[in-house]
């Protein structure tokens, strides 16, 4: 019996061990190595030298990095509320039971999630195109000026449209799945008390969606602050609008691979990761404070 109990005590750590070993090697390892690298600098004279936090001091004053972070922050503030609001409305509509063809609608809105962001950006890039894009073709036929989706003023909105297109369905499915778990007797009780569909949505469904909404919100923070694929692909169509520091992540990429400043790139990645973690927690804390107030 003692042998069985001992075996049971070691079983838990053994089940967890494969994941934890790889987690340490492939998650904590790179972070630790980058942290180490970020403390050095390659100098023309004297080779690699320990410089302490100099790289970070440079990074927080680097106008291109700050501009990139500012741009993704703007993107986050505009795109995420639109996307989550749409996802919420769609989920409530699907859950209301008032919809015909609900299955088709649900799947159709979700399908873009299965499309690689590279393909999504290529498709929208062609759709946006000023020469052969269908929108430009249509407006030429109507004698109107072609919409300049790829111009400086429109670009952030055009990128936001691509990201919204990709992820509304994913968020909708998470919210919809949460709505389906609300016990139906709650609705019946509310209806007996005289609550209409809007009142039920506001007083029962929204509070029940809270955890799922928080989850989608945090994922959206992470997603928008690391914006890379979409601008990287549209860059070829509009090289004058999207420069190598358009988003924070594009900048990190160009520091690491175009100018090959390894140590500075490590510091920039680290700083960017820290910004995202801090913003995620700030969003979570704000949302949780809203509940207790």
């Amino acid at each position, binding site marked *: 019996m003692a042998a069985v109990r001992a075996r049971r005590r070691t079983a838990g750590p053994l089940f*967890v061990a494969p994941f934890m070993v790889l*987690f340490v090697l492939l*998650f904590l390892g790179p972070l630790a190595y980058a942290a180490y690298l970020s403390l050095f600098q390659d100098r023309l004279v004297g080779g690699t030298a320990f410089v302490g936090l100099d790289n970070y001091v440079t990074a927080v004053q680097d106008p291109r990095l700050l501009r990139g972070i500012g741009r993704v922050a703007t993107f986050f503030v505009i795109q995420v509320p639109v996307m989550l609001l749409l996802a919420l409305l769609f989920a409530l509509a699907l859950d209301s039971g008032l919809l015909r063809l609900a299955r088709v*609608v649900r799947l159709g809105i979700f399908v873009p*999630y299965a499309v690689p962001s590279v393909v999504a950006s290529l498709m929208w890039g062609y759709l946006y195109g000023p020469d052969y894009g269908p929108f430009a073709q249509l407006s030429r036929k109507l004698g109107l000026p072609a919409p300049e989706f790829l111009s400086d003023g429109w670009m952030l909105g055009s990128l936001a449209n691509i990201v919204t297109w990709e992820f509304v369905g994913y968020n909708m499915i998470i919210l919809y799945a949460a709505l389906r778990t609300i016990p139906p007797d709650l609705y019946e009780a509310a209806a007996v008390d005289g609550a209409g569909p809007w009142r039920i949505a506001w007083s029962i469904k929204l509070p029940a969606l809270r955890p799922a909404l928080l989850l989608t919100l945090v994922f959206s923070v992470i997603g928008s602050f690391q914006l890379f694929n979409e601008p990287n692909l549209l860059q*070829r169509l509009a090289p004058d609008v999207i420069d190598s520091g358009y988003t924070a992540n594009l900048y990190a990429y160009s520091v690491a691979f175009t100018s090959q400043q390894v140590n500075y790139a490590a510091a920039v990645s680290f700083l960017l*990761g820290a910004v995202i973690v801090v913003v995620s927690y700030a969003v979570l804390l704000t949302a949780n404070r809203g509940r207790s107030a």
Partner: protein
Amino acid sequence: MTARRRSTPLTVAMLAALAYFLLPLFWLAVASTKSTQDLFTTFGLWFSDSPRLFANIRATLTYDDGVFGRWLLNTGMYAVASALGAALLAAAGGYGFAKFRWRGDRAAFNLVLGAIMVPTTALAIPTYLLFAKVGLVNTPWAVILPSLVSPFGLYLMRVYAQDAVPDTVIEAARIDGAGELQIFVRIAMRLLAPGFVTVVLFTLVATWNNYFLPLIMLNDPNLYPITVGLASWSAQAVGGGSGASSDMLALVVTGSLLSVVPLVVAFLLLQRYWRSGLAAGGVKQ
């Protein structure tokens, strides 16, 4: 809520929304039937007079000694290896955290939980620097290994295992003399199947669609997954308006279509699984 009333205005509004989400895919399907010249001269949202989908597919698959097929194979291999590996690791880990107690289990789990917030791309450049140091860059491992660790997958499997595998079932199996590994493989894995499939699917999508990691890790076009390959073709298509590169456009479009089809089909066929798994992850936290 078994109201049999249906709302026509709401249905029309949702169909309009549906049209927006399907528009780019419809465009892609139409564009795949056109030659590069027709792409420029005919209306984008309707077919041209001379559809040539199969000629386009043949051209895509044979261009540059069939490098596209190679990219498809690479993508499939990276995605399947990463998804199965990540899901197995997450299932075993989640089961361990859910059903066993030992010193430090909470601390270890919280460490993993904190990692959910760390964005994958912020981790990608550090991972590249480390892999460059140990010589893993420009190998398939450079793409597969980082995808094996899925903190969110572990979290999901832990939440799922909590309820899906009742303690009484484990206890009964122990009384019958089954070993812990045997219980996990024979009993728990069967009960965990919906959660497992969810993690497989979502890691599959994440790896299939991954662009940043393979972009920085791989130089050899023979190792590219589809995303990086298509991006390199699109760079050629945009790069010059004349000569061979102008024909690239039709290849990029057809290649995009070919790369989208497998995942969309997988999602449609497996929807029963990922919906139940998502419900577990999104609701109970």
